């Protein structure tokens, strides 16, 4: 298996009259942590949504693990091993944390009659172990809706891990999290990448986080890819600074 795990080529997506993504091309290397930065409205979330199949793209190609996925829907792409977390964090509010985890089991191999089986103890143990990994073990029996925003983010992250993805797209994972907890989250992201072998593709606004975390960064502005490179290169690129400070891109 070689080649980038995600390959986006010439993807264009417009909503009504607004072109959110214009001829976007980028690659995400297998096993890497890749960052995606850019000012608000640059089309980052739209790109994520395109990749996971939430909406069809107007033109271009998206390949996942060598396979064209731009025609597939969310369910199919999820089952191929591509997960994403949402900016506004979506969890199942009325169920407790453990139940949220159990529902997140990978579904690719599940047969029709699997739904009639109970959850075996080893799966429950795995769920609890992952909850502990994100620091939610003591809250595991609370309804997800009663958790704080930051805790829900962690839960959503744990649920994504439970799904055993090959790639995890994270949309602003540290937004809204208490700054003292951010280091813990960075650490967990790195561990997920290193220990579980999950490729991470991360949208971030927090420069400290993304420079610390990512090995390769893309910067977008007004729907296009502006530049890419290592954190050092991107940080010092004048175009990136201009984009954030509002000069014409």
């Amino acid at each position, binding site marked *: 298996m070689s080649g980038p795990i995600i390959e986006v080529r010439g993807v264009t997506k417009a909503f009504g009259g607004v072109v959110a993504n214009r001829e976007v091309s980028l690659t995400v290397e297998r096993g890497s942590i890749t960052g995606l930065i850019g000012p608000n409205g640059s089309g980052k979330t739209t790109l994520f949504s395109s990749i996971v199949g939430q909406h069809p793209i107007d033109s271009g190609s998206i390949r996942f693990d060598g396979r064209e996925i731009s025609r597939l829907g969310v*369910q199919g792409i999820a089952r191929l091993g591509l997960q994403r977390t949402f900016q506004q964090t979506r969890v*199942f509010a*009325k169920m407790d944390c453990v139940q949220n985890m159990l529902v997140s089991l990978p579904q690719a191999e599940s047969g029709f009659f699997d*739904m009639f089986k*109970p959850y075996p103890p080893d799966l429950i143990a795995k769920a609890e172990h992952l909850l502990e990994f994100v*620091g939610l*073990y003591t809250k595991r029996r609370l309804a997800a809706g009663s958790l704080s925003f930051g805790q829900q983010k962690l839960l959503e992250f744990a649920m994504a891990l439970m799904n055993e993805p090959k790639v995890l797209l994270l949309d602003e994972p540290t937004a809204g999290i208490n700054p*003292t907890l951010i280091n*813990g989250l960075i650490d967990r992201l790195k561990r997920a990448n290193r220990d579980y072998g999950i490729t991470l593709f991360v949208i971030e606004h927090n420069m400290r986080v993304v420079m610390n975390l990512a090995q390769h960064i893309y910067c977008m502005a007004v729907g296009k890819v502006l530049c890419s490179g290592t954190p050092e290169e991107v940080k010092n690129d004048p175009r990136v600074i201009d984009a954030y400070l509002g000069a014409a891109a």
Partner: protein
Amino acid sequence: MKLASRTAALHAAILVVGLAAPFVFPAHSVQFAVFWIMVLFALTWDAMGGQMGYNSLGNIAFFGIGMYICAITQIGLVYDVGEYTAANGAVAIHFTDAQYFGGLALGTALAAVGATIMAAILSWVLAGIRGPYFAIGTLGVAIAAAELTAAWPWVGGGQGISMPVFPGGPGMRERFFYFACLAAAVACYLFFRWLYGTRFKLAVNAIRDDEDKAEALGLHTRRYKAVAWSSAAFFLGIAGALFGNMTGFVEPLETAYPTLTFGIFMIAMTLLGGKGTLWGPIIGATVFYVMRELTWTYLLGWQYIALGVLIIVTVVYFQQGILGWVKSRRPEWFGVKVEERGGPDSGKPRPAPAPKAVSA
């Protein structure tokens, strides 16, 4: 341990009452049978609406389909259906005991299967339709079924079908169908009790809470929707088959497809008792049934208005239902943990606490 023995005692008590009722109050056997049908109605509606969030206004369609399939089977085995319905009661079929019960058994089985297949097909046809559109669409299906049946002469059209006569003396018939309805309700309860203990429950609850997120996790949502609806339809078909025989007469608009009465009662009962729980529908059915009997006795003429008002009041003011209300007052009874003020509760001791933050 205590909870388990309490539950067992409760189940046993209900079973005893259920078995004894037609002997203690023989004149009310049919009414009691209707009660068990109402319990079945509530349980099946909750599977779709309460557990999965797909609020169907037309589940009664499966009740009607089951009724007609059973009637056609019973008559068709022995006589020509078209001729029978055309004669409009002038022809009296004679069934031997074996023929009657055989026909009834086969008819009920086919009713269950037929309703299930119809549900699976509908679930495919209406795939992707959610929320209020789903509700109105299903209402449309039920109304369409009623109207089309009423326009179909082969099944008796608007006149209906008069059912074969039960072999056996007076009182026997009522008791037989009472126990049949009781058995159906019990089977329904046991089935859903088992089903909600499997992965199915969490999956459909996830669909209810956030279907898009459930899809994003890769859940085969279509499968769950089909299974939920088919399970409900299965038992509704059986209920229809039994009800048609019990009433002795099958007619499309009031008996088989009563969208504006039973069709909506099943929703009201579930909401009243507390949707999304196993016992909520049962409690709701009981309370609703009692209210219905009371209004029929004391408010005759006004009973439907009273029930309509009950529906409005429940929906507007009492959405959590009885069980929901109890849960909010006494969450401990339901094993729900309430977050304590101060430190997190300790739970069982666990190795390796969460890793301390290491700054970059």
